[in-house]
């Protein structure tokens, strides 16, 4: 670059044309407008960031809650397994249950019985019965729920069932 130092010096002596004074006024006005509008770009970004933060915190809280419940349930399950194993080793036939602490108590919270199929199988005579009965077969899905009020954990058991109902038929 030393070869060009003289040329660079000459170039630097050249002064670019100055902007018009009007430009300074226009820029000043535009900046004032920005301030008066409280910098719309930044205003628009601020609520977005707060919303993100809020959603993030909410999601984190749900995850922590879920994680806590899961860990407690695992812990309880492990305790049950450990108790069962210990019982098998030391007490071959426990006659009474160990008193469980309140944290492991589940109380019934409800149940549903959903009939998803009902079939009328017609009239039948039961064993030794003189009157015919109408036999109806129900296919249902039964669900029972328990809830631990201490920990908020819930337990749900769901299974399919089949039910046969015999309806006596009276002749006219």
């Amino acid at each position, binding site marked *: 670059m030393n070869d060009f130092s003289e040329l660079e010096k000459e170039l630097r002596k050249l002064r670019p044309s100055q902007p018009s004074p009007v*430009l300074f006024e226009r820029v000043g006005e535009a900046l004032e407008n920005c301030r008066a509008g409280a910098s719309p770009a930044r205003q628009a970004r601020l609520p977005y960031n707060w919303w993100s933060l809020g959603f993030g915190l909410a999601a984190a809280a749900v995850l922590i809650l879920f994680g806590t419940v899961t860990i407690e349930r695992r812990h309880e399950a492990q305790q049950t397994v450990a108790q069962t194993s210990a019982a098998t080793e030391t007490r071959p036939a426990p006659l009474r249950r160990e008193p469980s602490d309140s944290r492991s108590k589940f109380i019934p919270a409800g149940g549903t019985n959903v009939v998803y199929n009902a079939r009328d199988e017609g009239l039948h005579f039961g064993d030794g019965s003189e009157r015919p009965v109408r036999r109806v077969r129900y296919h249902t899905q039964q669900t029972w729920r328990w809830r631990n009020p201490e920990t908020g954990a819930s337990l749900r058991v769901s299974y399919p069932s089949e039910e046969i109902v015999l309806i006596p038929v009276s002749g006219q």
Partner: protein
Amino acid sequence: MEPIASHENWRNCFSEVAPGLLLFVRQWVQSAADAEDIVQDAFVKFWRRNHDISNRGLLYAAVRSLALDFIRRDARRARREATALAEAEPVIERQFEVDDDTQSALAAAVRSLPCDQREVLVLKIWNDLTFSEIAGALGISQNTAASRYRYALTNLRKTLQPQ
């Protein structure tokens, strides 16, 4: 490293960079008024977005982007101007304040450089950007920026050498 948005005395800041920015824009835009519009837009946007004043590469990249957008938008007018300039005696608005014939010849030699060399020269000489900043502003490598600068100086020397 003062953020430009908190720079209350924007006039000092703008008066420092405005001549160089205008010269940079006028490498693509003939009209000084159009160039001033572009510089105003770029500077105000830069300020509003709270960019760091020391991040000059970003400022020049924004100016260049706006200038190129302007050229695309105004292509029809540019063609009309180019035709008019080709037919009539070209009235070129001055890019430099010249004191004598030597400086006038030097300014003419700069104008005759290819655009890619001229923009690097303008950023280096009259805006004091480093090759790293030039590379960032133009989206090229530092080596390319340095070699374009060397080519520009070589070409200027050839043009200015007495026949």
